[in-house]
């Protein structure tokens, strides 16, 4: 099954699990299944319109993907979708 790799700061909402296995075949269905399983993740991952928040990126391998634009992207058995906080800031 495809996997969603969960970053450390979101694990407090996923019972400390580091990965979520999904039987869904598209990126948007997988993300929906993930936030349905762990509803507390939703506010930190998605904005009011259901898009991934601007300071969080999703990657499949080296490619950045976004459910709003690449929602129909097909997932294979061995696809790993990484959730990566865009770490930034400044004075």
């Amino acid at each position, binding site marked *: 099954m495809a996997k969603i790799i969960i970053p450390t700061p979101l694990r407090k909402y996923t019972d400390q699990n580091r990965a979520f296995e999904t039987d869904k075949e598209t990126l948007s269905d997988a993300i929906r299944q993930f936030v349905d399983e762990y509803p507390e993740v939703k506010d930190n991952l998605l904005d009011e319109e259901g898009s991934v928040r601007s*300071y969080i990126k999703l990657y499949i391998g080296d490619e950045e993907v976004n459910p709003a634009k690449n929602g129909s992207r097909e997932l294979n058995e061995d696809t790993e979708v990484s959730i990566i*906080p865009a770490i930034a800031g400044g004075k």
Partner: protein
Amino acid sequence: MALEISTDALKKMQAHAERDYPNECCGFFYGLEGESRQVRIVHEVENAKEGDQSNRFQISPKDYQKAEKYAIDHDLDLLGVYHSHPDHPAEPSEHDRKVAMPWFSYIIISVQDGEAASTRSWRLSDERQFEEEPVSINEFSTRKTPQNLEI
């Protein structure tokens, strides 16, 4: 929750902040999460912000993925991110708050005229507001002797 940090780890962050002055520096720290957070290892990371780095920092997705992998491989927790505020207080800005992640500790080092002046740590509340967490020095020997950090 309090943050305990070894002298070596603290010195490494402060030296990095001074070296990159007047630009902002950034990095990750790792350790153990228990009754308090124990910072044991510090890794410097390249500031990937394009253009003026005197008031902004950014960490590349690749470096972030490496940090997560390092934590798993070494059975440590990726506890948070540090960065510097050149000629500015060690307090999070609105920009820091908007893009901050829950759970992580955010250590900020104020650098005044090229010298590290104060080091403070912050965490997001459930209301997405930063709250300061106390920082103390701990050498993590068998006998714990924490002492207050001069800030």
